[in-house]
C-alpha cells in the first residue's frame, strides 16, 4: 500500500505492537471528574502506578456549578471533585480545578493551551474528544476501563478504524455556520453513517473554516456514529497553535511544523466510505426530534413521520414527535422556546460567543425566555470580558455564567424543567439529556441568540 489516508499516517506512527487490534501509543490523556474515579480505584486496588503522569491533564467540568464557584450542586458532585483532586495529587497529574484560571470544558482547554497538536493521539473518557480532531489528531472517547488501561500503560488496544471521507464542496452561504454544516451532514447521512470509521472532513468549505468551526464540526462527528473526525492541518492550524502556552517552541516548533506539513491524505488514497455534501445550499438549521440527525432548516416545518419509508425510522420519528410535543407541518418559526442555552464543547469558544453577541447587541431576550451563556473555559470567559461581550449578554438579559458543561448534560444543577423547550448550542437532543422531560432543539450560537430575542425559532436575518 503506497497511498495512505491521513488517519493511516498518524496511526502507523503510533503502533507499539501490531495485532488484529493494534496496541497504539497515546500522546495525550485528558481526564475529568465523572469518568475517571473507577479507573484510579482500579489502579489503586491492583497497586499499579500511572506510567506517564506528565502526559495526562485533568480538569473539572461536567458537574461543576456555573452560577458561583463555591458549592458543588450535590454530594455526589462534591465527592467526584474531591476524588479527582486526590487522584491527581497522588499520581502527580496536572489538574485545572474549579477556581483556577485554566479550568474549563476539557475539550476547550486542550486546544487553547496548545496541548492538542496535529499528528497526535488523544483520548479522554468522553465521546466528544472528537473535537480535538480539528487539529489533525486522532482523538476519540474511551470508557473507564480504557482510562485505567491508558493510565497504567500509556497505550490503548484499538482496531484501526475504517476510513470515511466527508467532502464538503462549495462555500457556506452567509448566515450558515459550522454548526449548521454539522447538522446538515447528519441529516443527509444519518446518525450511523460513520459507524466503525474515523471521518476525515475535507474539501474547500472545510478548509475555509476557522479552527473554532473545525472543532464544532469534528465535535459532532461522533453523532454520526463515528469513532471520531479530523481535518488535515494547514496554515490555519499552525497559526492557531503558534505561541500557545504549551505548544512546542523554537527548534521543536520548526521540526513539528515540518512534520505537520506531511499530514494529509495522499491524493490517490482510497477511503472505505465517502460522502459528498454541498455546502452551497446550506441554511441555518434546527433539530425537531430526539437525535441530532433529525433537523430541518429554520425556514422549514416539522416533518411528517408518515413520509418515512423505513418502519423503524417512522416509529422513532413518531416517538420523537410525541416526546417533543410537536405536530407535523408546524412551522419551526412558530415554535416558542422557554430556555436558550449557549455553551458546551460544541459552541462555547470565543468565536461562538462573538457570533451570539453580534446578534444580541442592542437587543433583549423575549419575555418569559431564560437565556444562559456558559463560556467554555476561564480563558474564554476572560477574553469575552475584555471584549465587552459579557455586558452585551447581560444587557440583553442573558445570564453570564462560569465555565462548565452545564445544561449540555444537566448534572451540575443546570437543567431544563420537564416539558420545557430549549434552544441549545450543544450536541445532543436525546430524551432527557438536559433534564427529565426536557425538550432540546440543537442550533448554532447565532440562531440561539436570534431565537432568544424572538422567543421562537429565528435566524439573525429574521430580526
Amino acid at each position, binding site marked *: 500500500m503506497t497511498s495512505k489516508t491521513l488517519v493511516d499516517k498518524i496511526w502507523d506512527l503510533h503502533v507499539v505492537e501490531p495485532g488484529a487490534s493494534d496496541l497504539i501509543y497515546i500522546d495525550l490523556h485528558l481526564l475529568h471528574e*465523572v469518568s475517571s474515579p*473507577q479507573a484510579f480505584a482500579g489502579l489503586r486496588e491492583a497497586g499499579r502506578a500511572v506510567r506517564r503522569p506528565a502526559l495526562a*491533564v485533568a480538569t473539572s467540568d461536567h458537574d461543576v456549578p456555573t452560577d458561583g464557584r463555591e458549592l458543588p450542586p450535590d454530594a455526589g458532585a462534591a465527592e467526584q471533585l474531591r476524588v479527582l483532586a486526590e487522584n491527581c495529587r497522588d499520581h502527580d497529574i496536572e489538574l485545572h480545578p474549579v477556581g483556577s484560571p485554566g479550568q474549563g470544558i476539557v475539550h476547550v482547554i486542550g486546544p487553547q493551551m496548545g*496541548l492538542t497538536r496535529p499528528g497526535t493521539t488523544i483520548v479522554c473518557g468522553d465521546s466528544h474528544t472528537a473535537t480535538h480532531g480539528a487539529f489533525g489528531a486522532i482523538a476519540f*472517547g474511551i470508557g473507564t476501563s*480504557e482510562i485505567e488501561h491508558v493510565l497504567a500503560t500509556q497505550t490503548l488496544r484499538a482496531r484501526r478504524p475504517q476510513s470515511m471521507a466527508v467532502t464538503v464542496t462549495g462555500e457556506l452561504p452567509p448566515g450558515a455556520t459550522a454548526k449548521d454544516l454539522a447538522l446538515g451532514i447528519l441529516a443527509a447521512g444519518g446518525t450511523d453513517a460513520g*459507524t466503525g470509521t474515523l471521518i476525515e472532513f475535507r474539501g474547500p468549505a472545510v478548509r475555509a473554516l476557522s479552527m473554532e468551526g473545525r472543532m464544532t464540526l469534528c465535535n459532532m462527528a461522533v453523532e454520526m456514529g463515528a*469513532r471520531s473526525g479530523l481535518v488535515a492541518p494547514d496554515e490555519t492550524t499552525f497559526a492557531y497553535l503558534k505561541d500557545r502556552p504549551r505548544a512546542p517552541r523554537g527548534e521543536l516548533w520548526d521540526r513539528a511544523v515540518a*512534520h505537520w506539513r506531511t499530514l494529509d491524505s495522499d491524493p490517490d488514497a482510497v477511503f472505505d466510505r465517502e460522502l459528498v455534501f454541498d455546502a452551497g445550499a446550506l441554511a441555518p438549521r434546527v433539530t425537531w426530534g430526539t437525535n441530532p440527525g433529525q433537523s430541518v432548516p429554520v425556514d422549514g416545518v416539522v416533518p411528517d413521520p408518515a413520509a418515512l419509508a423505513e418502519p*423503524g425510522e417512522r416509529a422513532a420519528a413518531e416517538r420523537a414527535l410525541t416526546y417533543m410535543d410537536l405536530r407535523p407541518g408546524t412551522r419551526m418559526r412558530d415554535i416558542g422556546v422557554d430556555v436558550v442555552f449557549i455553551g458546551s464543547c460544541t459552541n462555547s469558544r470565543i468565536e461562538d460567543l462573538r457570533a451570539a453577541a453580534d446578534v444580541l447587541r442592542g437587543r433583549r431576550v423575549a419575555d418569559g425566555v431564560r437565556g444562559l451563556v456558559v463560556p467554555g473555559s476561564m480563558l474564554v470567559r476572560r477574553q469575552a470580558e475584555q471584549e465587552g461581550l459579557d455586558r452585551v449578554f447581560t444587557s440583553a438579559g442573558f445570564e453570564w455564567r462560569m465555565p462548565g458543561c452545564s445544561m449540555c448534560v444537566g448534572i451540575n444543577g443546570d437543567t431544563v424543567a420537564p416539558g420545557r423547550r430549549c434552544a441549545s448550542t450543544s450536541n445532543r437532543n436525546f430524551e432527557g439529556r438536559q433534564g427529565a422531560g426536557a425538550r432540546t432543539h440543537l442550533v448554532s450560537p447565532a440562531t440561539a441568540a436570534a431565537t432568544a430575542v424572538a422567543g421562537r425559532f429565528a435566524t439573525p436575518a429574521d430580526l
Partner: protein
Amino acid sequence: MEPLIRVTGRGVPLDRPNVDTDQIIPAAWLKNTTRTGYADGLFEQWRRDPGFVLNRPERAGAKILVSGPNFGCGSSREHAPWALHEWGFRAVIAPGFADIFRNNMPNAGLVPVWCEPAVAAALMAATTADPAAEIDVDVARRTVDCAAAGVRAAPFRLDDDARDRLVAGLTQLEVTLRAADRIAAYERARAPWLDVAV
C-alpha cells in the same frame, strides 16, 4: 473477569433504533464513583411506563437484550454497559452498535452480538412473540442460535481481540502489561515535539 464462552438464555425485545446511552443510564447516575450500583438506573425514564418491556414479569431473568440499529449511541459512559450487566444481561443483539459502546461492552462483561439485519429481525420477532424463547450465543465461535426464530449458527461480528478476552476472562490491561518492554522501546524512539511534557 468471569469468562464468557457462551451466553444462553431468554431475550428481551427493545425494538427501537438508536437506543442512546442517556436512555440506558441517565446522566444523574454518573455521580457514583463505583463500578456498581447502576441497575436501578437502567432505562430509568422508560421504566416509569409500567408497560415497558423490562417491567413485565415474564421478562424477568432474561440474559440477552435484542434491539435495533446503532445501539449504544451517545456518550462514552461505561456506566451504560455496567448497568446492563448488573441488571443481568450478558449479551446485546443488534444489527449495529455505536463504536465506543461496542468497545466498552467486553470490558464490562457483555458480548456485543452484531448480526445481519435479517437475523436480528428474526430474533426480534421470536423474542417478541415468545418470552420463553431461548437464544444461544456462542462467543468462541461467534455464532448465534435460536430455534424459535429459525436461526441456526448465524455468524456475528466480534473483534478477535474482544472475543479472545471474553473467552479467557482477561481484561485488556492484563494482556497489555505483558508488552511493557515494547512500550518502553516505543517511548525511547518517540519524536520529542509530540511530548506535551517537554
